């Protein structure tokens, strides 16, 4: 059920203890917060925890949202960001350790390669996978600005309110983040191309029949491609 009321009105009703207002706010912004958390953490389970915690924080105390300080969406992203910061602080840097072992953990590798024959053509899914991994490898301060401005398409003004920094800082961080991202994508594609070239070379007989150890870390999980 979509409530056509303005955010401010819904917040007022939430303050008065109206459950329908809480449901409307969740229906309106739950997916956005989920996307934000998903892009930031790379793990669906964690992202859903963040969404849950964000809305619990919103509901548990009457919202301290002040309309004159900015739109409600910035306030809500701000809560989620604080939750994410707390979560990311407890995580190892992306390059040091594998992601959580959740059922839907996203791959951490920067340059997934395929065992398929279409080496030169990077499929749509592969490109998405690369950019997702590249974003996840960015430092959090650059990752969040990419997610907010490029993926969520928030205005610089709202992003600045979420990130609690001036607009100029948002612009400079975004510029830097895009540069880092482009470099990583370029590296990934280069690595992909070289690995693909290696694949075209004749293989030794022993390689072809070597047993696969499921515990061996692989650059790319081929089972994912085949599924």
């Amino acid at each position: 059920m979509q409530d056509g009321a303005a955010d401010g009105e819904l917040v007022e009703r939430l303050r008065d203890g109206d459950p329908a207002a809480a449901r409307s706010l969740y229906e309106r912004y739950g997916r956005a917060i989920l996307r934000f958390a998903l892009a930031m953490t790379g793990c669906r389970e964690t992202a859903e925890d963040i969404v849950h915690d964000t809305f619990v924080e919103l509901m548990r105390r009457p919202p301290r949202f002040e309309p004159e300080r900015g739109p409600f969406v910035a306030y809500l992203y701000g809560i989620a960001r604080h939750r994410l910061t707390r979560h990311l602080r407890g995580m190892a840097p992306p390059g040091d350790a594998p992601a959580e072992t959740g059922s839907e953990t996203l791959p951490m590798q920067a340059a997934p390669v395929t065992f398929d024959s279409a080496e030169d053509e990077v499929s749509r899914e592969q490109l998405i996978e690369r950019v997702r991994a590249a974003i996840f490898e960015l430092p959090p301060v650059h990752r969040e600005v990419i997610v907010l401005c490029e993926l969520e398409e928030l205005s610089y003004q709202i992003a600045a309110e979420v990130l609690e920094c001036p607009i100029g800082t948002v612009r400079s961080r975004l510029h830097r983040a895009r540069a880092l991202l482009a470099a990583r994508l370029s590296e990934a594609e280069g690595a992909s191309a070289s690995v693909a070239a290696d694949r075209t070379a004749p293989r030794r007989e022993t390689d072809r029949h070597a047993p696969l150890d499921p515990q061996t870390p692989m650059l790319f999980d081929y089972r994912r491609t085949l599924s």
Partner: protein
Amino acid sequence: MNSTHDERLSEALRLYRDTLREERPSPQLDTRIEAAITQHVSRRAPSRRAPSRWRVAAWSAAASLAAIAAGVLALRPWSAATIEEISSKPASVPTAAAGTPVVNDPVVNAAAVDMPWHAADLSPWPVDAAIVRVRGSLATDSARMSGNVPRRQYWVDVRLTSDGSMRIVGVEPIYEDF
């Protein structure tokens, strides 16, 4: 970053953005959120709220305090008047310094003469205590039993406090009997 890379990055971001837009909260998350709404929001709604145990206790405590306060307020005019009456009479209390020992009884003299101030003025419990003024006479049990009650009578101010203690704060002869 050259324009080719920039275009490539924009294209990749657009594809990823479109993929993210297809994400939906899982039914488990919806259930958790609904439970949170029930727990945190519905409980706050005053019209639908069932009286919780602590709320009943709070109301009981408030009612008790109100009853005590009402009792104190009801006693206050009387006790205040009594205190005022006592306080306004120190000049009439015979003192050794005044040199007018009207009361000849040594017990009464000890109480009345050696008291330059009223004990009630220094009480740390000014509101939850009351002073009762009673009329009395000093007599031995045998004299009382024989009906030979002395004519000399006194006002005795008795202070009753809420902790159950009682003490005499002033004894004053009744002059009109003389």
